[in-house]
């Protein structure tokens, strides 16, 4: 019994420490003062600031638009890529799979540096296009990795049956193959969104100078913080809290829904 509660205590302690920084910000995001540790009174002022400051709204918008654009493009490219790889001959398959691994295991700074130098070498100025390419380089291989297992689980005879019944190969692909790999496509897309939302290093190397995402904005504000007021910094607390609550809700709902589904199938 003691052993059991000791174990629970340890796991709980690590979790508590892991969440401490975010919880601290969550509490002080409702503080009227821009200072952690000094409590003024309960206030939504940091949230008001977050939703009224045009620069901050712009970087949040930029981050979301970029993430969904990069994820959508990566999903299309990666899904088609996975299909192509799956149906290719062994040697082509091995080569493409191998190259796909490079951005996955490479240090981000190496990917970023290589892309940035290449863009300069071919005379491509940094623009939204280069930024999008940068994000696609990190996202697309993960889409391929998500879709591939679903292709391997697929029943190939269904495709042949569709052809025998007179479907054109394109129809068979869209009506038979694609529906079977939808879960892989969806999780690939979600993965791509989170990778893009999270990225700092590749973004900073491929973005145009005046463009900012949450990552680059917050990084610059905290490390080169001369132009930033305490007010701006404290609006990040509100932003962190909102993101945290949304994610926690999403994860819990997804898990509860998932476990209910499993119970239902028993």
């Amino acid at each position, binding site marked *: 019994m003691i052993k059991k509660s000791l*174990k629970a205590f*340890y*796991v709980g302690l*690590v*979790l508590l420490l*892991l*969440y401490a*920084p*975010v919880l*601290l*910000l969550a509490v002080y995001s409702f503080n009227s003062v821009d200072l952690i540790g000094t409590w003024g009174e309960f206030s939504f002022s940091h949230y008001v600031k977050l939703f009224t400051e045009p620069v901050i709204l712009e970087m949040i918008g930029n981050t979301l638009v970029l993430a969904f654009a990069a994820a959508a493009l990566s999903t299309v*490219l990666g899904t*088609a890529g996975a*299909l*192509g*790889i799956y*149906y*290719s001959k062994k040697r*082509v398959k091995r080569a*493409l799979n191998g*190259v*796909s*691994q490079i*951005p996955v*295991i490479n*240090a*981000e*700074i*190496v*990917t970023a*540096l*290589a*892309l*940035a*130098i*290449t863009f300069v*070498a071919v005379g491509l100025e940094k623009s939204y296009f280069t930024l999008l390419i940068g994000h*696609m*380089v990190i996202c697309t291989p*993960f889409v391929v*990795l998500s879709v591939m297992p679903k292709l391997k689980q697929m029943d190939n005879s269904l495709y042949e049956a569709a052809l025998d019944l007179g479907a054109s190969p394109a129809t068979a692909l869209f009506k038979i193959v694609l529906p079977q790999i939808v879960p892989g496509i969806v*999780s690939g897309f*979600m*993965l791509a969104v*989170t*990778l893009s939302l*999270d990225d700092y*290093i590749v973004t900073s190397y491929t973005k145009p100078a005046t463009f900012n995402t949450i*990552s680059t904005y*917050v*990084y610059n504000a905290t490390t080169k913080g001369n132009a930033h007021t305490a007010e701006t910094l404290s609006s*990040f607390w509100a*932003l*962190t809290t909102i*993101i*945290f609550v949304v994610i*926690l809700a999403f*994860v819990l709902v*997804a*898990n509860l829904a998932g476990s209910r589904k499993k119970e239902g199938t028993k």
Partner: protein
Amino acid sequence: MTRPRFSRKALGIPYAVFLLFFVIVPMLVIVFYAFTDKQNHLSGMNFIKFFSDPTKLSTIAYSLVIALITTAVCLVVAYPVALILARSKMKKKNVILMLFVTPMWINFVLRVNAIRELLNWIGILGEANYFNTILGMVYDFLPFMILPLYTTLLKIDESLYEASADLGGNAFTTFSRVTVPLSMPGIMSGVTMVFLPSMTNYVVSDMLGNSKVTIIGKFIETYFGSDWHMGSMIALILLVVVFLSTMLSGGFKEDENVRGTNL
């Protein structure tokens, strides 16, 4: 006999072209810059300069030590967590595991900023730069360690523990002779997944180390401004190290894709 077929293989062409232009070519460009000098003449000088400059080597050494400590702390903290969860008979242990991974979904820079605010509140921001950097890395990379450990520990057959006990092994012997050896694949991939970002992700060291801690990733970044050739050489060396260590640890595994677990 053969009707004209819509080629399914052709679907891979755009992806292959994309990989060629934006993955292979950039890697070749890095190799080119690494082995040329400022006049674009073929040269091995960058390589020699790198290995003969004590300041460069000491930066690398510092970075390696930081990464080693981070990895060791992560392993020591994560192993019990993973073991307790893997052997727990609790129904909802998946939810608890999820809670360990959930912080990964908050924007990375915002997460580091939260730690920064915490350290500032405690009063050690700017005071203990190396300590803060390591602490921040442990915070950020801990899930990378917990997950592969949990996956391999979960696969260990319960009866092996019983067999060890029946054969007279005490808790410690069972742990050191059964649990640890069988979880070695998880340890290896956890170690690689923490060690590599600890050497290269300079966001943590910049934001928490008061920009006074230089890890290999930052080192490459500083050369991006001044000397592409040297920067590329360091990047290339890092690339080789990363690939060798990944190959040694058995490559990237799909089921240990930390970010995918919540989906």
